[in-house]
């Protein structure tokens, strides 16, 4: 029956189902786990944005943490300076701020490719958090801003804070994912892939290559801004130390692990991003590892993941699942479905 519906309606229904599942899940889990579920949510939207840029459009970004930085500080500043605004406006503006920054970055990046683009975006990730030192009065230097979001509606006052926050995060994330899925499925998605596969052919087919690349950057960094805004909302802080180049690289690692070419891959990647951290913490406690080891274990794992996946499993988790799924559904000829 779902097949008859237009894809946008399918995406919306899937998102609704996802939200219902999630709300049910948060009733079963403790506050600590709820916080982790919410964390998976904001990483998911950041990685999904990166999937659109790097996976669909072939532009590599090593600076996506910078857009999360912008989103987080937007929410922090709005909560502190304009407390009257409702949180959903703050989050929307975080996405807008990230998108605007991405528009600038994309305009600069449209002429770059491969190692040149990677270098420029890495410079963004290294350079931007230092801006907080430049404006210590506004951005509070390296300590960062901390604040409390008092936006829990009275009707929900009986619900524990972490559960309620997880709902907000996932509501925003699923809405953004519906938009992304529609874009990826529709005309823009085809254009992005055409530019990725062959720029010359794409421009001969009447596609404006530069504009497409900038648009990919805009959408993708708006997702990054939203992710950063959600992180700030959840943690009540925005500090430069959380937006190191290592964050940008681990977002990329999550994307590559999940599978470059699909939004589902972003989900597996985001789960891995959160649970690699959780498992290494557990492991460290279990074997009482020295902090030298346990602090660096997640980064080492992300690095190993990047290397192993590229060398041995280029399609990532989603690619593997897809292969299994098509084999189950259609045993005979190999079939490459829509990604």
């Amino acid at each position, binding site marked *: 029956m779902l097949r008859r519906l237009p894809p946008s309606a399918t995406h919306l229904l899937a998102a609704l189902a996802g939200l219902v599942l999630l709300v049910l899940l948060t009733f079963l889990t403790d506050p600590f786990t709820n916080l982790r579920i919410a964390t998976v949510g904001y990483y998911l939207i950041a990685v999904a944005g990166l999937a659109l840029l790097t996976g669909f459009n072939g532009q590599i970004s090593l600076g996506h943490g910078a857009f999360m930085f912008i989103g987080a500080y937007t929410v922090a500043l709005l909560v502190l300076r304009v407390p009257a605004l409702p949180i959903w406006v703050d989050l929307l503006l975080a996405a807008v701020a990230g998108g605007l920054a991405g528009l600038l970055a994309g305009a600069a990046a449209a002429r770059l490719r491969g190692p040149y683009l990677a270098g420029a975006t890495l410079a963004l990730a290294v350079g931007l958090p230092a801006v907080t030192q430049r404006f210590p009065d506004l951005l509070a230097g390296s300590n960062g801003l901390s604040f409390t979001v008092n936006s829990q509606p009275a009707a929900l006052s009986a619900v524990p804070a972490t559960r309620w926050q997880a709902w907000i995060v996932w509501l925003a994330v699923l809405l953004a994912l519906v938009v992304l899925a529609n874009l990826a499925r529709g005309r823009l998605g085809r254009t992005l892939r055409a530019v990725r596969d062959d720029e010359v052919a794409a421009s001969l087919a009447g596609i404006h290559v530069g504009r497409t690349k900038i648009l990919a950057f805009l959408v993708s960094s708006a997702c990054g801004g939203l992710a950063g805004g959600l992180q700030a909302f959840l943690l009540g802080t925005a500090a430069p130390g959380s937006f190191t*180049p290592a964050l940008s690289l681990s977002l990329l690692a999550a994307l590559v692990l999940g599978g470059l070419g699909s939004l589902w891959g972003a989900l597996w990647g985001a789960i891995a991003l959160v649970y690699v951290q959780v498992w290494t913490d557990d492991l460290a406690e279990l074997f009482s590892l020295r902090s030298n080891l346990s602090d660096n274990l997640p980064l080492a794992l992300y690095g190993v993941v990047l290397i192993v996946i590229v060398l041995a499993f280029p399609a990532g988790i989603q690619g593997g699942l897809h292969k299994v799924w098509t084999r189950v559904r259609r045993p005979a000829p190999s079939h490459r479905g829509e990604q």
Partner: protein
Amino acid sequence: MTTFLNLTVAGLSSGAVYAALGLSLVIIYRATRVVNFAQPALALISGYLAYSVTKSTGSYWLGFAVAIVAGTLLGVAVERLLIRPLRNAGELSAIIVTLGLLLVLQAVAGMIWSNEPHAFSYAFDFRGRFAASDLFAVLAVIGTAAGVLLLFKFTSLGLRLRAAAFNPEVARLLGVRVGLMLTIGWGLAAAVGSLAGMLAIPPFISPTVLDEVFVYALTAAVLGGLDNPLGTIVGGLAVGIGLSYVSGLLGPELVPLAALAILVAVLAIRPTGLFGRATARRA
């Protein structure tokens, strides 16, 4: 006026370091069309080895020698184990693998030597304007760069290295051992990178100490066109002096963003770098 002079001189010595690290990127890019994002991590590991050796033996120069040798071996190992299997994969694959290596090596450094900074000594006295250590940095880099250029231009090894990078198929037909040449290229580059690390790391070593330096070195290499060693040396010195002005006149926290601005401005005007040829990027 004296501030201006001081900034210029300070920029010259840091620029020499960017030029050296940039040179190591260029040597690799010429040979294998890969930008080695793990280069700062290779230099970092050799820096930490130098730190340990110097600490246990008390000899700076023994540590220095260990760093260069270890760097070379690391470069060779990376080419053989990670880059060679990617010969026919896309540009993105090589970038991602070297980034993965960067994360692994930084994490390993943190595991062994901890994330806390340790004191790391200069080769010579560093006090005052253009101190002995600055002079050493500039001379060491100029000497190394000259050595590399002479090697490429005037020796038979250099000819084979260039042939293997320029046209592997023809070179192989003419009896050049292309695989060996690529490995030598990576080893040579990593040695130069380790030298740059030894000069850039003081006064403190920590796993992320070379992140910013790498961005500046990359800016220098891109300015040079990624396949032009001489252009990279000039680019490195120009970036060093330019960033020194930014640091002194506007504030040190803006230096990485200024590097980004230089990178974007140059590439917007000349997408293949100031000294790059138009074909450089297509390969």
